[in-house]
């Protein structure tokens, strides 16, 4: 929760003033890197402020900011900014693998897919375990419309590096983009095996089970949402809102498919979840009117 506040408040501060100060700009860029957020418009806005007004204030951060700005610029089609960043990075780090990958990314962004693939292939020749380049090469195939090939590359990699949770998650997203829900579910369940304490993955698995529907899947959804709720409880919070809401919604869905499958335990837990949700919405900074909307909506579940 604190990290969300930090990014939110820094963003608000940055955009609040016409005259942007270096410190806020640097802090915002830093927070985005720490949180690993994809906020390309904000990054480009910050980078332009720094490059135009405070070029000397970046210090040692200059190179990591150039990299961050390059990726964001490519995301938004800001060709001039991207070219500037890439040429400065190439000049400073001529033999760097990391900069080579950014060059590949630059080709991808303008649709020069064979040039991009060539960059990545060369890197993979030098280091076949360069999984970042492998993933970029897979993305090239995806961009060219060959999702099958992209998926095949991920699957081949995962057969060797089967505990690479991040890559399982990337593959899951590829499957979700194609509405291949069972395959996505398999990936999330692999993540659960290797990372049984990560509640986010239980939530994703539950969402897919619910979407697939039917008595058995809904029972599993209830189970996964329960795990997620338990795992997400901390001293300050009684659990992730998504997990709590998911729990309520899936018990209800199960009752509609098969009344008898809803055990007394499930009903108890669903009612408990409703109370936790009401508690969350009785907090101080909740926008006016939302608690009532949530209350009325909960009644239908």
């Amino acid at each position: 929760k604190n990290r969300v506040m930090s990014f939110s408040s820094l963003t608000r501060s940055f955009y609040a003033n016409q005259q942007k100060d270096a410190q806020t700009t640097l802090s915002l860029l830093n927070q985005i890197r720490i949180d690993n957020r994809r906020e390309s418009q904000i990054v480009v806005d910050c980078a332009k402020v720094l490059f135009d007004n405070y070029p000397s204030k970046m210090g040692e951060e200059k190179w990591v900011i150039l990299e961050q700005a390059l990726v964001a610029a490519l995301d938004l089609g800001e060709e001039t900014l991207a070219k500037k960043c890439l040429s400065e990075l190439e000049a400073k780090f001529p033999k760097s693998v990391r900069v080579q990958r950014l060059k590949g990314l630059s080709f991808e962004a303008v649709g020069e897919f064979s040039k991009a693939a060539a960059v990545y292939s060369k890197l993979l020749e030098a280091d076949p375990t360069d999984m970042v380049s492998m993933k970029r090469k897979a993305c090239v195939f995806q961009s060219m419309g060959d999702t099958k090939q992209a998926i095949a590359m991920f699957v081949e990699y995962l057969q060797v590096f089967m505990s690479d949770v991040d890559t399982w998650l990337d593959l899951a997203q590829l499957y979700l983009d194609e509405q291949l829900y069972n395959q996505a579910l398999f990936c999330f369940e692999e993540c659960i095996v290797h990372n049984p304490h990560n509640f986010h993955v239980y939530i994703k698995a539950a969402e897919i089970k619910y979407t697939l529907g039917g008595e058995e899947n809904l029972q599993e959804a209830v189970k996964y949402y329960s795990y997620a709720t338990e795992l997400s409880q901390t001293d300050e919070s009684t659990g992730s809102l998504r997990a709590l809401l998911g729990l309520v919604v899936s018990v209800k869905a199960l009752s509609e498919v098969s009344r008898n499958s809803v055990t007394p335990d499930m009903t108890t837990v669903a009612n408990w979840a409703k109370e936790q949700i009401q508690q969350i919405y009785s907090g101080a900074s909740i926008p006016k009117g939302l608690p009532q909307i949530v209350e009325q909506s909960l009644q239908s579940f």
Partner: protein
Amino acid sequence: KKRKMSKHWKGIINAASYQKAVLHALKYPYYTVNGVFLGTVNKGTVTITDSIPLFHSSPLAPMLELAFSQVEQYAKSLDLEIVGYYHASSKIEDSDEKLVQQIAGRIHSRCEAACVFVINNNKVQEATLAGEFHSFNEKGVMVSNSNNVEFVEGREQVFSGLTTLVEKRKTVLLEDFDNHLDDVTKDWRNTDLL
């Protein structure tokens, strides 16, 4: 509560509804985004007066159903109903046709004159219509129908207004249902946004 569809379908949409939808797509150009339209229906004419941004992730059933339930409550409080849906795929050349038909079809089952706006990723940064409006035929299938959609304030004003809003970075201030689930102080109604 199904209304009898008249022979001629017509859509009327105001600046705020259109602009919020496209701002949502522009806020997350690299994710699939979706949302619903609120408004009223009179015979065959659907009048869209607001849009509610929902998700910026692959839409899955449980949170979608939850969001619909809450948005319905909100709509009721304003004497409105859910009358449409908008969608922008994360992929440039794909429009997620099947998925859109699935989700929008559910709205159509309760609102025959429902309107669906499918955003075209190739057009979304230009001062032009950023996609295609659809209505539903007798078989319940979405059909292109942008020619029968009228902008209350006039297209030019709406599109140039949108350019201004983007320059003012209203995308940063827009909050969707996904944002709200991560931080309950974020308001998906966006009543103060424009």
